[in-house]
């Protein structure tokens, strides 16, 4: 039972570099999410997707882009990395609409440091 899989787990970027955080889920969930977690701040929603081909901004979308070409994958792209993007990133998914569909399942997180 893989659930939600994120890669890489750890990454150090230089200011201005670009990278993509990969996320895949094998639960056939239609909703997927990207959160960032900063100390003492809880989780903030970056982007979310309600299905393949549909994405929407969350609370803190600036500096990020996403795409959802398939149900399984929801990559998060940082185009020009900035120190403010140093954070822990969590991908998540849920089967919205089913009786128990409002439970969100999280990946193991990606620790990103921008120097």
């Amino acid at each position, binding site marked *: 039972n893989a659930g939600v899989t994120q890669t890489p787990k750890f990454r150090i970027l230089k200011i201005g570099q670009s990278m993509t955080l990969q996320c895949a889920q094998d639960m056939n969930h239609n909703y997927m999410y990207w959160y960032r977690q900063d100390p*003492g701040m809880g989780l903030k929603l970056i982007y*979310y997707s309600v299905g393949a081909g549909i994405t929407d901004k969350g609370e803190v979308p600036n500096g990020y882009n996403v795409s959802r070409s398939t149900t399984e994958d929801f990559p998060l792209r940082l185009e020009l990395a900035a120190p403010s993007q140093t954070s822990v990133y*969590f991908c998540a998914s849920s089967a919205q609409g089913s009786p128990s569909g*409002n439970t969100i399942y999280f*990946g193991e*997180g990606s620790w990103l440091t921008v120097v």
Partner: protein
Amino acid sequence: AQSVSQHNHHVILSEAASLELGCNYSYGGTVNLFWYVQYPGQHLQLLLKYFSGDPLVKGIKGFEAEFIKSKFSFNLRKPSVQWSDTAEYFCAVKGGGSQGNLIFGKGTKLSVKP
């Protein structure tokens, strides 16, 4: 707009002490409520959830939470904590139905002294 408040930033307890972590939310309609736990260096795991029915919800590892609609609260409790409960606990709320996103509180760090 939805919001979630967790009253305590850091709670320190000795083993066998009782635990209650406060969570209040603001949302006018039907809500789904969750508590997630994050052990050091790990991802978030669902502890328990409330969708409807009995307002006293029992979760894993002896945790429970009570939904009090009149107080907009969903406090987490455990009668006797263990050292292994040391973790960060997040309350989250989502508007009922298919719309809306999960909004998290800022978390409460629990440290249990052996």
